[in-house]
Every structure is written in structure tokens, then in C-alpha cells.
């Protein structure tokens, strides 16, 4: 996604978008089946370092982007820490029951979310949508009708945001931009949604018609303006990730931070 933040093109940007997806998505499954917090802590450190060094963004911006994650970390871990099951009680006050087990489980969950977030950010910040969909068409055989629909929708986003501003102003002038009560609030959401959605629907229809009028068909035999291929950077990425995952896993066994090896 374009963030309007300056960045340098690094090898992470050069890597094939489909390759990135193929490497990142399975990590979700792998992470879900890891129950040892030590492993997750190591991985978090490893991938954070990778991100900071090679995302091509200035440190100041990276830190700014990481800010919300801290909040998420606390927020995700808190319910499990406060209300989770456990044997070794540390603290009890009314419904709140903090145990050693629930504490580590909470922290583990926090790291899990953090890792997902890092992968997401790493992908989003180093991948141009246009190249992503061109790559998906060429490497993953995604049907053109889906790929170009996504691209058209992405193009419409700034237009829609501008329209949202205008609707807001228009409602303000008519004193219709505020509402009281639950029902009123729902009506208000509709008042914003109807003009925006109906405009989007009409525009989507027109764009589809104009695309077909320009000779678009859903056949896969088409040429591509951007040729996207797999390359050496995909191998780099694979190797780096492999090293982080394997080293992190064994270090967790050899030099654990906490004694708990399974938070379940």
C-alpha cells in the first residue's frame, strides 16, 4: 500500500509478491501451533530486526508504525491474564484472578499477535498493489476478472474518501451529522453509508462496463505490461526466514527466558 511515507527500495521490495505471500501465510499456521513462549519471543526479535533493517523505511517511521502494536499487545494479553484459568494464584480480587499460568498464556498471546502484525506490516509496506495482482495473475493463475476488480477498487479508494468528506460537510450544513441514542446512531451510519455505497455501486457498474467495452474478457491468454517473475530475492527471503525460525526454535530450548514450555 502506498503510505505517502518516503522509503528506499530494498531487496524486500524486489521479492516476488506471491513468494512473499507463500512464505508469510504458512507462518500463521506454524505460529498458532507453537505453545512455547520462548520460541515466540525469539521469533519476534528476529523478525523485528529483519523488518527494521530491510524495510527501507526510516527508523522514526518504523517506530511510529510500531506504536499501536504495543497497545494491541497489552490489550490482547490482558483478558487472558486477568480472567484465564490457572492453578498458581498470584492475585485475586473479585472476578479478577491472575495466575502464573494465565499470565504466561496472556503474554504468549501478546507475542503471537505481535508476530502476525509484523508479517502483515512487512508485506503491506514492501508490496505495491499493482505488482501484487500482476504477480498473482502470472504466478498463482488468479483470474483476471478478480485481479482487475481489486485494482479498480483500490483506485477508487481515494475518490471515496474524498466523497466521505463531502458527505460529512453536506450533512453538517443540514444539521444532520449528529444523532442521539442507539437508533439515532444507526440511522446516522445509514445516512453516511447510502450516498457512499450507491455512488460506489454505480461507479463499479460503469467501470465494469467500460472495461468490457475496452475488450476485456476473462480469458487467461493475455499479455502483461509488468512481467513479474520469481528471482534470487525470493531465495534470500526464504533463507533468512528459515534461519530465524530454526535458530529461534533451538535457542528457546537452549537458553529459555521463562521456565514454562507449554502455556496450555
Amino acid at each position, binding site marked *: 500500500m502506498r503510505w505517502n511515507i518516503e522509503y528506499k527500495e530494498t531487496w524486500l521490495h524486489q521479492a516476488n509478491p506471491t513468494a512473499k505471500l507463500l512464505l508469510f501465510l504458512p507462518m500463521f499456521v506454524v505460529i498458532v501451533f507453537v505453545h512455547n513462549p520462548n520460541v515466540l519471543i525469539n521469533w519476534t526479535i528476529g523478525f523485528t530486526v529483519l523488518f527494521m533493517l530491510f524495510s527501507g523505511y526510516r527508523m522514526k517511521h518504523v517506530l511510529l508504525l510500531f506504536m499501536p502494536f504495543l497497545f494491541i499487545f497489552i490489550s490482547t494479553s490482558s483478558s*487472558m491474564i486477568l480472567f484465564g484459568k490457572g492453578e498458581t494464584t498470584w492475585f485475586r480480587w473479585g472476578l479478577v484472578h491472575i495466575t502464573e499460568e494465565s499470565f504466561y498464556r496472556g503474554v504468549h498471546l501478546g507475542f503471537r499477535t505481535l508476530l502476525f502484525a509484523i508479517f502483515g506490516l512487512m508485506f503491506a509496506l514492501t508490496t505495491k498493489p499493482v505488482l501484487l495482482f500482476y504477480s498473482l495473475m502470472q504466478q498463482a493463475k488468479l483470474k483476471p476478472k478478480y485481479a482487475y476488480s481489486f485494482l479498480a477498487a483500490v483506485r477508487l479508494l481515494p475518490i471515496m474518501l474524498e466523497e466521505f468528506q463531502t458527505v460529512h460537510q453536506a450533512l453538517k450544513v443540514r444539521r444532520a451529522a449528529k444523532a442521539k441514542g442507539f437508533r439515532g446512531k444507526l440511522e446516522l451510519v445509514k445516512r453516511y453509508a447510502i450516498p457512499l455505497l450507491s455512488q460506489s455501486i454505480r461507479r463499479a457498474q460503469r467501470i465494469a462496463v467500460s472495461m468490457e467495452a475496452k475488450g476485456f474478457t476473462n480469458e487467461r491468454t493475455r499479455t502483461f505490461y509488468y512481467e513479474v517473475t520469481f528471482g534470487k530475492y525470493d531465495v534470500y527471503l526464504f533463507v533468512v526466514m528459515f534461519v530465524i525460525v530454526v535458530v529461534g526454535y533451538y535457542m528457546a530450548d537452549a537458553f529459555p527466558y521463562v521456565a514454562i514450555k507449554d502455556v496450555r
Partner: protein
Amino acid sequence: MQKKGLKLTDVLTTVVIAIVFGIVYKVWGPLYYAVKPLGLHLDQLIYGMWFIAATVAYLLIRKPGVALLAEVAAASGEFLAGSEWGLEVLFYGFVQGLFAELVFAAFRYKRFDVAVVSLAAVGSTIASLVLDFYKGYIDQLAWWNLTLFIGARFVGAIIIAGVFAYSLVKALEATGVTQLLRPTTKEDYDSLDK
């Protein structure tokens, strides 16, 4: 008449609407986290917003596959906008959309009422809970807390992705823009000869 599968118009309209909801999904994240630390799972009441793309798109376009596509597209939009959950949202989007789609399929894509979309919302809720079970150890919560958690999520989903989605589409129908989205019927063709 209508060919099999989704036409470009259907796909594009679905994706555009879904991406609008994708932005809502993204904005919903911080809101969700803001109410979350309150602890008592009030956040779960607003979780249903993340199912709404599937039900709205289905009600608008009324074709097989639309609910799944919409939910995946909305999740992609949320992801590309830099979601706090990162890649996770793609999995959730896919599974939630799939469960909603299965509900519509169970009714053979013939019903478009508030009951069916509410059921689809329930389907998406179940999907999200299954993933949460693996990802979030929710079974390790104290039982009273877990009950509150699940109950709030179901209730919120039915209100937002069921009832509200339905009334939103009704309001859109009144504007007339939905006319061209719907598949044409044999009666429409017959009336040419009257």
C-alpha cells in the same frame, strides 16, 4: 440470459463494496481495542461488524459466491490498509466468508430475508470462534467469562451483520441503484411481448 458464474460487473461491484467495508474493518480495529481492556468482553458486541461485507454483498447481488468473495475482499482491503492484525485477517476473512456462504447455499440462494442473513452472521461467528479456539486459547478462559465472550459475539453479530445489514440494503433498494445488480428473470423477458 444469465450465464453461469459471476460476471465482471458482479465481481467488480462486490469488490468495490467490500473494499469500502474493508476500510470500516480497519477503523473498527482501534475501536475494538479501545473497548477491549474494559475486560468484560463488551468488545465482542461490536465484533459482528467484521461479518457485514458478506451479508450486504449477498443481499445486493444475490448470486452464489458473492458472500465469500466480499468477505475475502474486505479482509484484503483491511490488510492492505495496514491492519493491526496483519495476515491473520486474511484467514479470518476467508473462513468467515465461507461459513456465511454455506448458510446461503443451504437455502439454495433462494432466500434474501432477515432470518437468512442473521443465520449467516451466526455462521461467520462460529467460524471466527473456531479460529479463536486455536489462536487465542479461548477455552482457557474461566467458564463465566467464556460464556459472556461467546454470547456477546453472537448477539452483536446478529444485530450488526444480520438485522442492520438487512435494513441497510433495504434503504439502498429504495434509492433504485440495486435494480441493475439483480439477475433478470424470465418474466422480465416475457414482458417484452406484452
